């Protein structure tokens, strides 16, 4: 009997001996993670910047997209429909053109142009229209922040579908026609325009397409130069 009592008596003491350091250790881990892994990243500082460009846009697409979202919960639904429109412009970057890309042979000229890419995606607020916005009795309407998020998703969706629209192919055709006509006016009789084979054009659409996104400190060097 005495042995049993002594075993029962030892148990809480042993538990506390390990538990207290363990709790302290966990508190320490929490303190370290809170200190060194903040959940919010500090905001980048953006400045007003002017930047030189040398882009030739040769095609413009006007597109329309309906943004549709449903938020279904057991205590009520929310539904919204927004009509949006965007203007897409594609063309080439003349800044990439160098001496090596041009071959002149008498009155014949061959120009190696960079691949066309999406230069602009512009979703104008004035072309947006809220068609339907309804929520159940127990639900709140879509907030301004939620509408912002839905519109951003719509913008991303348009950008992701560039390849399906054939805009880059048309940009290449138009650029070729435009430059041929200009160069023929300068006295060349035979104008041969080809596009350099580089990485797939679709991949290059992403960074340049949405200019309103702060791409770091855009053109800071140009601003400094001035």
């Amino acid at each position, binding site marked *: 009997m005495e042995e049993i009592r002594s075993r029962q008596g030892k148990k809480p003491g042993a538990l506390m001996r390990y538990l207290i350091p363990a*709790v302290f250790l*966990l508190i320490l881990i929490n303190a370290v*993670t809170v200190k060194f*892994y903040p959940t919010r990243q500090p905001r980048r500082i953006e400045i007003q910047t002017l930047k030189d460009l040398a882009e030739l846009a040769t095609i*413009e697409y006007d597109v329309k997209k309906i943004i549709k979202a449903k938020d279904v919960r057991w205590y009520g639904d929310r539904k919204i429909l927004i009509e949006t429109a965007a203007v897409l412009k594609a063309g080439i970057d003349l800044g990439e053109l160098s001496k090596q890309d041009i071959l002149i042979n008498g009155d014949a000229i061959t120009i190696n142009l960079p691949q066309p890419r999406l230069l602009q995606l512009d979703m104008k607020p004035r072309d947006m229209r809220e068609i339907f916005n309804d929520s159940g009795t127990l639900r709140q309407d879509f907030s*301004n922040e939620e509408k912002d998020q839905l519109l951003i998703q719509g913008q991303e969706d348009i950008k992701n579908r560039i390849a399906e629209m054939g805009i880059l192919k048309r940009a290449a055709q138009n650029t070729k026609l*435009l430059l041929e006509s200009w160069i023929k006016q300068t006295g060349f009789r035979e104008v041969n325009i080809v596009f350099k084979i580089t990485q797939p054009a679709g991949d290059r659409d992403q960074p340049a397409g949405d*200019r309103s996104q702060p791409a770091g400190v855009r053109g800071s060097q140009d601003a400094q130069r001035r």
Partner: protein
Amino acid sequence: MKKTRLLLTILLALAIGLLIYTPLARFHLLPDLGSLFTSKPPRIEETPVIIEHIKSIAQLFTQSYYDECIFDTGTILTSFFQSDKRLIIIARGVVIAGFDLSRIDANSLSLRGKSISVTLPPPRILDVIVNPSGYETFLAQGDITFQERIDAQEKAKKMIEVNALKKGILQNSGEQGARIMEKFFQLLGFEQIQVRIAKELF
């Protein structure tokens, strides 16, 4: 006594559980505790992108201006039964200036041997782009309508355009346009290049 002990044990277990969960959530190994009690942000459904119009253009973009501005509607007084409204948005966007080269014709070019003279149309603001990802709602007090949002966003865009003009975007655009043309015709083999910029006729 037993009940108190049980309660204390449960509380201790919960506290330990929380202490283990929090760092794991912070390292994104487990979902954030707050997200377990809030609904997920809504996702848009699949809808097509409809091409409405295709147009051939010839625009030379020569200058861009990036800016960020804050637009505040101020307090908008409403009827007695409604709360007053106020909307503050932050807009980040870009202004593009350049030339409409579709206005260039045979008369714009003048050739003499290895010399060329080009007359460009006056530079102008071609686009002011502030996409949805460029807008941030900082404050939305009261029942702000969709149209009121749109109006505020359009006004913020206008502010960015005015700032670009103040910074001399058109002058820089003209200078850069001349540089591009000089370089282009140099590459075509011309030795003397003169670029003129026409003045806007008003």
